[in-house]
């Protein structure tokens, strides 16, 4: 264990802990922008600099390993001034479009500017350098004017999704992320998982489908499990005025954390689709107690309630089992169901119906 002092408070941490993590242990919050607990730390944005006794210059706490006897000062006047300067530099060439930006209210740059009371400086770049909404990807909206070059998108794509779509291009003031060799995202083999969007601290990368439809503070977030497959990813449905406008990932999800696939993150448009069945339907003859037609136009579908529909299904299964035996019935379950749902179907087949005819689509 390593003993160090943060703002005069003694703290003991295991070897390999960064100063940023150690500060968190004693309740000291050091601001960060390029750092994210899921991603490899790079120390690029320099907002997390702290004074360390014995060092000539302030050090980036996100990459600085805690060492024995270290004395760290996280909020000295000089450090606060440095952070303000860094924020000014970031804001100087940032567009002044917070009023219409999708992530207003949930933007890390905005939060820090508020915390440190930094205004957009007058001496900034007077113009727009990149085309807004520059990428044809149907799910991800790219606006490089808002980018602060933190490289979180690059690291998310590399370290979490493993697709290596984003890379940094150019040097100096022109540095910015590009997909592939400065092509478009899909051409750079993007799977549209939206991890880059989830990790972007500003509005540079945002969700295109929900752009302009609601900000974070305007929505109610409902935690749910994804219905697309059996992995069991969880995410938050962002509900505004009774409609799901967006899906956001959350580190609270036990299975997947912030990671989602394209279906989980962007495949939510079926929820409010007019073609979606929201009530069960049965053939009219079943309700009216008539016979099934063998010729001509079949009986039409009619909407009914769940009890009626389930009763009908149970009765028909019972009839088949009585007349032809349990082994005349087979049950096929799905990989899209959870383990628990598949287990229940197994019980249903073997114990309720009395047959071993149960199989799973993954065998095909």
């Amino acid at each position, binding site marked *: 264990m390593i003993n160090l002092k943060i703002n005069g408070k003694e703290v003991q941490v295991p070897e390999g802990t960064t100063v940023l993590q150690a500060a968190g242990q004693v309740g000291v919050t050091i601001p960060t922008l390029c750092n994210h607990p899921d991603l490899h730390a790079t120390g690029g944005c*320099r907002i997390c600099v702290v004074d360390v006794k014995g060092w000539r210059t302030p050090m980036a706490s*996100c990459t600085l390993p805690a060492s024995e006897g270290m004395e760290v000062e996280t909020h000295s006047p000089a450090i606060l001034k440095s952070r303000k*300067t860094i924020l000014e*530099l970031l804001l100087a*060439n940032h567009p002044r479009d917070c009023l219409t930006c999708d992530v207003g209210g949930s933007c890390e740059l905005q939060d820090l500017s508020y915390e440190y009371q930094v205004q957009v400086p007058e001496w900034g*770049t007077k*113009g727009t350098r990149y085309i807004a909404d520059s990428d044809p990807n149907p799910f991800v909206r790219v606006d490089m004017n808002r980018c602060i*070059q933190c490289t979180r998108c690059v690291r998310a794509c590399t370290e979490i999704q493993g697709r290596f779509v984003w890379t940094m291009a*150019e*040097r100096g003031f022109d540095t910015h992320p590009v997909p592939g060799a400065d092509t478009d995202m899909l051409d750079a083999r993007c799977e549209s998982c939206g991890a880059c969007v989830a990790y972007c601290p500003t509005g540079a990368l945002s969700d295109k489908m929900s752009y302009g439809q609601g900000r974070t503070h305007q929505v109610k977030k409902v935690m749910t499990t994804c219905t697309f497959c059996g992995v069991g990813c969880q995410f938050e449905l962002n509900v505004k005025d009774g409609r799901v406008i967006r899906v956001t990932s959350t580190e609270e999800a036990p299975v997947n954390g912030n990671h989602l696939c394209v279906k989980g993150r962007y495949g939510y448009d079926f929820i409010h689709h007019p073609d979606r069945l929201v009530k069960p339907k049965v053939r009219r003859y079943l309700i009216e107690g008539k016979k099934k037609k063998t010729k001509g136009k079949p009986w039409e579908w009619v909407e009914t309630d769940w009890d009626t529909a389930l009763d009908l299904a149970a009765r028909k299964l019972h009839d088949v089992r009585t007349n032809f035996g349990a082994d005349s019935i087979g049950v096929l379950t799905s990989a899209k169901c959870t383990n628990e749902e598949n287990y229940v179907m197994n019980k249903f087949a073997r114990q309720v119906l009395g047959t071993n005819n149960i199989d799973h689509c993954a065998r095909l």
Partner: protein
Amino acid sequence: MKTKRAMILVSNDPESIRLGANEVVQHLNEALASYDLQDEVDVSTISDVGYSNILPLVIVYPDTVVYGPVKASDARYLVEEHLYKGRVVNDLLAPPKALTGPIGFLRGHKGYNPAEQRVVLERAGRIDPESIEEFISANGYEALGKALSELTPEGVIEIIEKSGLQGRGGAGFPTGRKWRFVRGAKGEKKYVVCNADESEPGTFKDRLVLEGDPHLIIEAMVIAGYAIGADEGYIYIRGEYGLAYQHLETAIAQAKEYGFLGDNIFGTDFCFNIHVHAGAGAYVCGEETALIESIEGKRGEPRSRPPYPTTNGLWDKPTLVNNVETLANIPPILRNGADWYKSLGTPSSPGTKVYTIMGNVNFRGVIEVPMGITLREVINIYAKGMKPGSILKLAQTGGSSGSIIPADLQDTPMDFESFRKAGVSLGSGALLICDQHTCIVDLVKVLLQFFRFESCGKCTPCRVGAQRIYEITKRLTQGQGEIADLDIALDLISEMERTSNCGLGQTAGTAFRGMMTHFREEVEAHILNRVCPTGVCSMDPETAQSDYIFITQEK
């Protein structure tokens, strides 16, 4: 081996080749054949000898007559007169003034020979860089043999430590201590990396070694590997150094063949291999951690430190990164001993330093002199004084990131300690000498333009800060400056010095700061009088153009 009566050396550095050195060699050979002298006279090539105004150079031994510049059409006449008839061709002789420059072996020219102290450049320009035999005959690989057969790794480090050698890349870190750190670092696998990414503008000291004496670096790296316990080395060479790359590849192949490299060197258990890795033109890759990232195949961006490369370097293994000039000092130190080395230079900075002289002086080129000589001596003796009509206004040491030294500091001894005391840096050894016609604001603008372009873009202070200071300086040259801008820039520079991730951002504002310290009046004239005292700056707002194409412009 046949004994030859004479030897002709032709310089074949890239500049000479551009000016037709290859044709000169071809015509010399043809001419020799036509006089039936091919068995008596050998034609060989040497690398750059340290200056550029009389290339291509032809030197005839054993007479030590230097001709230059020589054209292909002169070759036949030269062979006929000098080698067939035995008369020196006066028309082709290199002009005596230029000749008296850096070439140590040209001391025959009395009256024009400022003494150099060649340790690093001992062989460069004297031996054929593509011949291992010539290297060996000039004490080559002697130090390696001594290290492997007489010394323990600990003993090698002790000698280096005792010699007081300091890193020649710019920072002046004690080399022996660095070696000890890497030797003491935990880990089975260790690496030696030679930083040959000489990208500081106006610095050509490493090129002379790499092109003219490539075996020296190989020898030094193997010694370093033996001392720190590494079995693999990388030479990260600047991408533009095509000839140096070729010479290194040739030298590595020859050294392997002779058993100085590869398995069981000198018949011992020690094995060492070297790879050459060419850079791709980024200035920042001269920074050791960016260089390591680049070797690993990643974008050349400096890492956050600590941890340092001495414990977590290439492929996360303990790594020794040394500059070419630093390594080139190792074999001479082992051969001659630490006490010999300490007798050169000053007590706090022993040894020699290679300087590249540029600017408004009579001689421009590379010299190697003991540490501690003054700028005045360099200008008056080695650079042959300022150009006619020129008066020294300032000098810049150490390339773009170096310091501005006003004329009144020219008597400061040039060594690490004296410069540190004077608040300036020695850097890579580039000396830019400027006369009274140089506008300091314009000079700083050019330097900042370099930094805003060469910043890797990783950390905010450097990426945006360099751009901002550049914009402010550019406004000064266009007559648009404000007094308040100066304080904004100075404040920004001090934040860049504090919070930048690497030396690039930390030193980007050094020149601006030097300008404000030593030439404030001249800067204020640009603002208050809207006049450039030297008449260099346009002071014309009409020329104010943005460096960026904006899609939309804010009003």
